[in-house]
């Protein structure tokens, strides 16, 4: 975890003009968190931080580049985009390259090995519980050493148990080291064992109990679409669950109706929320890289990671497929094998 190394790499790249801009994190306003930023000058790059508060998946911000419309007479900038990634983010970037949203040369990846990132609300809660000064967060520096998260401020040190303040997703992380990178920061980290301890509780339930659980959860959903917007694998211009204006008239052809079919209404009723989350889950099948961002951003705390983790498990068990591990084009639902399993067909 070294700010200096990242700052040095990013500012050199920007000064030499090797990248058009660099995506990284800077310290957020509240002192605990970090916020994603685009640096266009070496000075801006010198503000970058790399510490356990960098929870954001920077791969989501790559899509902004595609949305930008050139001014009249403006030449497109063909230089690559610089991006700072952790292990989990690197898989999202690799997925975007696999799906030809970007080519490998279009992205300059600065990877960092990661021991885990903190769950900022949890850390804040622990901070307040101990009665520590809020003002001290101006000079806060976080680091992970062994099983402890060390927060140093004003020359003092405060230690938190790693399991208490770390993100749930980091406890089962199998890819702490970036899978693709142009430059690497840090020592290789030991990955966590390949297991799904977080699913055991749900797996033991009967369908009726699961239905009750998910109805309860989905009835909270306000359909803010934060889970969709933050997802590095969701890049459609028009989302299938958010049609702009499906106007049907007597002259609407079946083809038009087909293209505009609305699978869930905009009103966040319980049943529609169910359809929305099922659609999202299905669209992510074989593509989700399990970065866990949807779970983090949900304002009402729906455990969306239970859906994506289960999907990941099914896909790996049935088809031995995992997305975003390299840059070779690969897509689970656009390929087949003659000897695929036949389970469940009458």
């Amino acid at each position: 975890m070294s700010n200096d190394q990242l700052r040095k790499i990013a500012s050199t790249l920007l000064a030499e003009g090797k990248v058009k801009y660099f995506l990284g994190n800077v310290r957020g306003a509240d002192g605990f968190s970090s916020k994603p930023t685009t640096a266009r000058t070496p000075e801006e790059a010198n503000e970058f931080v790399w510490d356990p508060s960098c929870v954001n998946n920077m791969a989501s911000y790559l899509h902004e580049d595609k949305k930008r419309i050139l001014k009249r007479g403006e030449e497109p900038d063909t230089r690559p985009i610089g991006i700072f990634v952790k292990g989990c983010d690197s898989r999202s970037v690799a997925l975007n390259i696999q799906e030809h949203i970007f080519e490998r040369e279009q992205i300059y990846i600065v990877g960092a090995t990661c021991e885990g990132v903190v769950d900022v609300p949890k850390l804040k809660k622990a901070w307040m519980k101990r009665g520590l000064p809020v003002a001290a967060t101006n000079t806060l520096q976080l680091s992970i050493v062994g099983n402890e998260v060390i927060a140093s401020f004003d020359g003092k040190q405060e230690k938190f148990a790693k399991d208490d303040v770390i993100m749930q997703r980091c406890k089962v992380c199998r890819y702490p080291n970036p899978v693709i990178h142009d430059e690497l920061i840090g020592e290789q980290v030991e990955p966590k064992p390949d297991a799904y301890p977080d699913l055991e509780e749900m797996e033991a339930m009967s369908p009726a109990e699961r239905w009750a659980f998910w109805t309860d959860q989905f009835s909270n959903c306000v359909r803010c679409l934060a889970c969709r917007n933050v997802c590095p694998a969701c890049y459609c211009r028009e989302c299938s669950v958010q049609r702009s204006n499906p106007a049907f008239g007597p002259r609407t052809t079946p083809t038009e109706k087909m293209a505009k079919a609305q699978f869930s209404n905009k009103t966040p009723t319980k049943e529609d929320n169910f359809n929305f989350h099922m659609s999202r889950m299905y669209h992510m099948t074989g593509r989700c890289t399990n970065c866990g961002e949807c779970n983090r951003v949900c304002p009402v705390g729906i455990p969306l990671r239970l859906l994506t983790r289960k999907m990941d498990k099914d896909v790996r068990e049935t088809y031995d497929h995992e997305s975003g591990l390299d840059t070779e084009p690969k897509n689970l639902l656009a390929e087949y094998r003659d000897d695929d399993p036949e389970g469940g067909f009458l």
Partner: protein
Amino acid sequence: MTDNNENNENFEPKIIAFLCTWCSYAGADLAGSARIQYPTNVKIIKVMCSSRINPLFVLRAFRKGADGVLVSGCHPGDCHYLTGNYFTRRRLILFKKQLEWVGIDPRRFHMSWVSASEGQGWADVVNKVIDDVKELGPQDEMKRKVVE
């Protein structure tokens, strides 16, 4: 889970079947022309290929009040478009697991391969699906409810 379980005796399920036009639909047609008896609860929607079926159609059917959904296509290797049903197979197997994970009983959603010559096979599949759904009773979970 369901309110009208006591009416199970007289319960006539509504099954939506998505059939591919080249094999399964022809199979259902054969069942008709061969006068094979099978229940009338199944409402058939013809699509050009089983790979046309977006799993969201299934959700949509449940949402519109279907008690069960059946998707049927050509046997693997027999697809009119050569490879369509291989994609269907991957898609639907995973989709069924996802339905199960959120708590829809897997017996409400069936997949089958029925070829154009299997009139009796089609009748058997329909009977099996209807038996399963009758056992479960009306589907009330995903059905859209109008709030007064």
